[in-house]
């Protein structure tokens, strides 16, 4: 057996970077038992923690980059270890040293794009509002009721632009007074923060906050649970306190208050996937279900892994930008679970989830077995 000695300097570095809660671990192994990685390959959060405790972390390795920050293990950890925060601490160290293993290399391009253009997709800042072309979407001005913050993916990605457009359409139907900031907004920074680039996150956040303040924004509507999470839980620590609402919550509010009339039928069976950052991280479980169940014609089916037990799509924690081997994609399992319910449509409410699920769907031999839709897209068909 190989002999190792605790590396005190590294322990201190890990702890200073936010890994102090590793100390609490009593090695019960529950984090490994619940981790989605162990459904596709072998991965040990317990070992990552243990290595952190003794300063034996392999900073240059792939393992510290695996965690999708899905939130399952911290939710179940009996000792109160914050695996996400502590895991990000390890990535901070790697980022500071500029060490990225092969699968993580794309992060460099992403960072450059975020710095330069305010989005991770290498798209021009100027084109950020292009998705709204042809729709009656106004620029946000002081006094507008709601800022719709579309997220980078719905702003630029071909598939996800449909989501942004559907959202604008539905909001329009409901007579909501909303606007967008277009090029004056940046990526929210949630995911780059999880890769350990605290500086970049802060920079993006400050710019956003400045923009929000300049425009007198009071209420932000978001499509992405990641934007939701950071605006709601992380920006306040930087000094911003705005009302943040996720589209699934807002849709339910509009329907419940009668502002949005569901006119048509959606005669299909639907299953709903809880995005990690909406469900587990922020406890929004019922509103999206309420919205879907309120649509006439919908047959609502649940997958076995649901609500707090939802299976991550694999896109959180910056993984959306990293390489994941073909046979290690959680989204493949998730789409399979959805297909097994017998549902015709897999609905969710997160741009990352949509991206991964569409990918998994297309890679299936029976790629027409199921449709992937964002919740607003479903609603846009019936209002």
């Amino acid at each position, binding site marked *: *057996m190989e002999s190792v000695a605790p590396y005190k300097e590294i322990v201190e570095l890990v702890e200073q970077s936010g890994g102090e809660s590793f100390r609490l671990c009593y090695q019960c192994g529950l984090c490994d038992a*619940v981790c989605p990685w162990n459904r596709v390959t072998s991965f040990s959060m317990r070992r990552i923690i243990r290595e952190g405790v003794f300063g034996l972390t392999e900073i240059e390795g792939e393992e510290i980059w695996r965690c999708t920050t899905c939130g399952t293990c911290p939710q179940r950890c*009996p000792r109160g270890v914050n695996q996400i925060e502590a895991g990000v601490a390890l990535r901070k160290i790697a980022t500071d040293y500029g060490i990225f293993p092969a699968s993580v290399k794309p992060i460099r391009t992403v960072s450059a794009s975020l710095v330069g253009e305010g989005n991770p997709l290498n798209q021009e800042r100027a084109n950020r509002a292009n998705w709204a072309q042809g729709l009656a979407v106004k620029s946000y001005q002081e006094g507008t009721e709601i800022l719709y913050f579309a997220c980078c993916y719905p702003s630029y990605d071909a598939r996800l632009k449909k989501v942004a457009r559907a959202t604008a359409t539905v909001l329009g139907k409901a007579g909501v007074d909303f606007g967008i900031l277009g090029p004056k907004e940046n990526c929210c920074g949630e995911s780059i923060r999880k890769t350990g680039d605290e500086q970049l996150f802060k920079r993006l956040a400050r710019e956003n906050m400045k923009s929000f303040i300049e425009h007198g924004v009071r209420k932000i509507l978001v499509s992405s649970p990641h934007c939701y999470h950071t605006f709601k839980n992380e920006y306040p620590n930087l000094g911003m306190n705005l009302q943040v609402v996720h589209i699934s919550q807002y849709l339910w509010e509009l329907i419940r208050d009668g502002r949005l009339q569901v006119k048509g039928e959606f005669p299909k069976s639907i299953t709903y996937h809880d995005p990690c950052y909406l469900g587990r991280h922020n406890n929004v479980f019922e509103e999206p279900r309420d919205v879907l169940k309120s649509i006439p014609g919908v047959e609502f089916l649940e997958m076995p892994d649901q609500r707090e037990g939802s299976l991550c799509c694999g896109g959180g924690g910056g993984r959306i930008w990293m390489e994941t081997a073909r046979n290690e994609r959680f989204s493949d399992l998730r789409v399979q679970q959805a297909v097994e319910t017998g549902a015709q449509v897999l609905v969710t409410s997160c741009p990352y989830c949509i991206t991964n699920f569409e990918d998994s769907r297309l890679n299936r031999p029976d790629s027409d077995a199921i449709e992937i839709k964002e919740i607003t897209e479903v609603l846009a068909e019936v209002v």
Partner: protein
Amino acid sequence: MDIRSDTLKLLERLSTANCADVLVVGGGISGIQACLDLGTAGFKVFLVEESPAIGGHMALLDKTFPTNDCSMCIESPKFIECSRHQNIEIMTYTEVERLEGEPGDFKVTLLKKPRYVLEDVCTGCTTCVEYCPVKVPDPFNQDISKNKAIHIYFSQAIPLVTYIDENCLYLKEKKCRICQTVCKNKAIDFTQKPERVEVKVGAVILAPGYKIVDRQMLERYGYGRLQNVVTSLEYERILCSTGPYEGEIRRASDLKHPRKLAWIHCVGSRTVLPGGNSYCSAVCCTYTQKQVILTKDHDAEAQCTIFHNDIRSYGKDFERFYQRTERLPGIRFVRSYVSVVGENPETKAVRIRYSTFEEGVKEEEFDMVVLSVGLRPPAGAEELAKIFGIELNEHGFCKTNPGNPIETTRPGIYVSGAFQGPVDIPESVVSASGAGSQCGELLRRRRGKLATERVYPAERDVSQEEPRVGVFVCHCGANIGRVVDVPSVVEYALSLPHVAHAQEQLFSCSSDSAKAIADTIQEKGLNRVIVAACTPRTHEPLFRDTLRMAGINQYFFDMANIREHCSWVHSREKEEATEKAKDIVRMSVARSRMLEPLEEFYLPVDKRALVVGGGIAGMTCALSIAEQGHEVYLLEKEDELGGIARRLHYTLEGIDVQNHLRHLIEKVNRHPLIHVFLGASILGCKGYVGNFTTSVRSQGRVQEIRHGAAVIATGAEEYEPTEYLYGQDPRVLTNIELEELIAKREERILGAQSIAMIQCVGCRNQERNYCSRICCSHSVKNALKLKELNPAVDIYVLFRDMRTYGFREDSYREAAEKGVRFIRYEPQSMPEVEAATEEGRSVLKVSCPDYVLGKKLELSVDLVALAAAVIPSAKTRELAQLFKVNMNPDGFFQEAHVKLRPVDFGADGVYLCGTAHYPKHIPEAVSQAYGAAGRVLTLLSQDRIVASGSVCEVNEQRCVGCGACISCCTYGAIDFRETPQGRKAAVNPVLCKGDGLCNTKCPTGAIFLKHYKDEQVYAQIESFLSELEQSAEEAKKATGTGGH
């Protein structure tokens, strides 16, 4: 007089004189024990229980660890003792509403809930239950099986009367009332309303027990969603012969016998998640092992997996129990917490994911999963705290004083049992006796004022009567009835000569059965009674008392054991078992015809006590006895009081040990009734319960001390390690040495940069096969202290299982939070320690594998602290011989019964407390010290004691004075006596335990044991042989072969 009229009388007394000395709240084993001790020690007690019967959680259990005694069998005699006790009044289905007043003078308002059944009229015949149309989940069976809206709480319930629950059609919709129609005794009363009763008491003992973790926590493990996931409490009922499946292990989905089972440890315990307990529930590891052993008893092929994170076998004999479980075939202990991910849709097997060190995460299916659920404060604890004006601790249990864990924050209100925090049965019994002692201190002037004595009717002279034998055959629920054909045994008994009556009974030990026996004795003029049931060890006193109440000499009773000796050992041979049961009954009948009435002896009790050992336990015990007005002789072998505590300084509970000790010694020295003997050694001990004479040498003087009771509190010692360079390198210390140096603020300790602590040094090994219980917490305590003094110090604790049971788990987590690192090692690769030089610095290299890293960790430290075993005091064996008491295999003193007599010795009048019993923490030793004092008082408060009639006697004409009997008697009960015919053996009937060993040694048959005389035993044997010959005869005839 029967039990029911007894109860009636008591109830009458309650309405006129609603005064008692003590109110005990909670009728579980702790409350029951407190009542029995106080009642026996001359106090009148009210026992209030909110459920319809006394018994508490212990009544729900199938067996108890680590002896696997039948829980009901050892507890139910106590129910009956309580219900028959002249100084105890039981009020079930009753809650406490208000308390006012002050110690010595409390006024308590009780609320008696309506049972809708007249307790004093109902005979418990259960006809109403049969006719009741409403089936409801049975609360006693954890809602697994059904009962009726009117039912008796459980078969052995005290009081054995029905109650009507809220599902009753009449109560809900004013319909039905069938029960009223069918009740021949007109016991149903729907007009009952909640009734307020005001009582006056001098003190209160709170013993409300615990509840299991909340459902929210269970749901995380699929409970409620997956049919084959059950709680451990439900599983207890499933295991039990009176349970929902009559003792067969079945699972809910298909009622099949599960083959592959899993237990999940720490459900709701050791977790900081919302709804969970941060503490360890202290009992689950061992009760899980018990359930596994019992499961294997039910089905030898069963495969059992236990998922855990540390096995906490910290109690006496627990380590052996753990090994016994581990060695069974098909048993796996897996060190991993688990996730219940769902079920197999076809087989309904439960899918579990767990992690392994070598092979990563695995998923496996189990037919059935048992959740080893943790303990929470009792339901309504907050309300209780408000009513009694006491404070709760941060976990919602009763806040206690660490220096006296029986004390609540309000004077005159004491706490015992699991309301103190999670504890097992013996500790609940100990604290009950302890609470009794503290009530005795408070109320000592009232002792005996309200108490009454039990009165028996005059005994019938049956010397001129022919034997008329009554035989009562017990089903013992299904324990016997499932194997033995009870009705055919009854029929057979009726065919035997002199049998005037025979009948079957579901539980002969239930109070209605006892009443039936007493009534039958009178109606049919029986003069011999046989109960064919379980063991006389637990139940003989009960039935003898029944005979006394029916006016028959109690030695006309005989017990035929058809359970331990028959149904349990022949469970698979039903026909043969039935035949054997008949043999046993026939033999018992033959014996009973020869029985003689015997008289019991009454002897005066010397009111003084001797306490051996002047440590915390001994001093605490001595003080509590003295505070109750008895003189105490306190012996200490050293020249100073204090014992091992003189070397201790602080505890996790926050006791300043030296300060505590100083106060204690002061109180002891100042107490006029305590006589301290320092530098004392015991030269000899003569006598017997109530009348001991001990000769003591102290400071050059020899003195004879006469006393009625003795308490052994001689403590334990720290093992002197031979491992890990101890004694060779001054940097290797024991835990106590480290503690002393910390207390002295020694520079080499405070200045150390890194320290390794190695657990289990000198125990949990072949030589000492037990866990020293205190060392995990001791190391954590030292680590926290060191971190407090020098936050930069690196501390590594090398452990096998962290056994920080109970609230100490919080300190374990706190230590981790402060940066103490815990490294688990396994006995097959023990840590290594060697002196080395590193970067010019002399260090100690400590290495051991880490199973998560899969690598060997090498630590360079300045100090190594060894958690050295706690070992029995060197004097243990000598004392055991002097006081004729037993030791366990590990060399600690052995109590009379691990569960229910935890501070008594088998030898009457001798008691036990502190680490002489087993390693324990200071609060536990204090609790036990009060417990021993409480037990001592049950003896010393008597003016006389009773000695058994079944003792040996010498036929002097036959005695040749050889002394063989004297040398073999382990109780020293036989001595020579000079007679005109020479030296003859003479038995002291008080010391004689009636074991009969001398009978076998006597060459002339001069010494004999009354109640087991030759003719009585021969009658029994002959009755067996004659039948054997007869059947051999018949067999010969049947096969037609000729004889010789």
